């Protein structure tokens, strides 16, 4: 369970990461703990899987990955784990989920594909289809980005900054 301090740490860590020599010291000051305590907590979250990564997320269009497609697959239930593990090994597949389908939309497996062009996305999907033997899929190209942001967890705990 997360206590109030955890929530405060997580909320403050959603804010601007200072690009200075000792960023954690500055973040710890915002939270009201020591740098050592903050690093210990973050290490603990990472071990527990709560912290997925420390790093950066790039704007994919700006770094040359202009095409993105959500690919919806129909996967026999017995093959979900095998397919999930196989598709995860591809660098071009950035997200990979099995999902509960709907009667009018039977696709139960989703991969996010990023590539430089639409043709490249299509070729990747074809390759994945061939490797897995899955032939029922829909490649859903994005035509407009209406919103892309990061979640602000526990915003009420970020106050006082």
């Amino acid at each position: 369970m997360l206590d109030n301090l955890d929530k405060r740490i997580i909320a403050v860590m959603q804010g601007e990461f200072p690009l200075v020599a000792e960023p954690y010291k500055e973040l710890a000051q915002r939270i009201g703990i020591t740098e050592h305590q903050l690093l210990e907590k973050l290490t603990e979250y990472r071990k527990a899987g709560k912290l997925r990564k420390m790093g950066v997320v790039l704007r994919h269009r700006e770094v040359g990955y202009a095409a993105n497609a959500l690919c919806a697959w129909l996967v026999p239930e017995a093959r979900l784990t095998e397919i999930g593990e196989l598709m995860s090994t591809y660098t071009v597949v950035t997200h990979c989920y099995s999902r509960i389908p709907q009667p009018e939309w039977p696709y139960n497996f989703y991969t996010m594909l990023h590539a430089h062009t639409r043709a490249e996305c299509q070729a990747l999907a074809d390759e994945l289809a061939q490797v897995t033997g899955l032939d029922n899929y829909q490649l859903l190209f994005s035509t407009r980005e209406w919103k892309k942001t990061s979640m602000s967890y526990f915003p009420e705990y970020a106050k006082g900054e």
Partner: protein
Amino acid sequence: MLTDFDKELLNLIQTRLPLEPRPFAIVAKWLEVDETTVIERLSWLKDHGYIRRFGAFFDSAYLGYVSTLAAAKVHPEKMADVAEAVNAYAGVTHNYERDGEYNLWFTLLTANQLEQDQILAVIANLPGVERLISLPAIEKYKVSVAFNL
């Protein structure tokens, strides 16, 4: 334009920002440059829009949040109104118009299931929304946006 050094730096730092008092000094050592060069270059990359977000990325499910991927069939004339109404929710982090029968796809994160149900019910009833389906995840196999530059 990204230089070869930028690409090397971004490839490293996408997933490997050290949890140490001087993280940029460690990255600098890997790249055989000094700490100031790393900090200055990262600031430049951030200011010029190559970096969307810097720092800690948490797992929503481990934090107790509930998530889903929703898809809507939206009348093209109402698309902008619907997309903006969907965007207004803080828990909607991705909202994309896509080719196909279901033409608006968004992710929704909420503190609990009730809140998710309520938001989806409101969206399903917006003028121009013909049908809304929710596709909650069963298993996450991969969530890692790291590009090879």
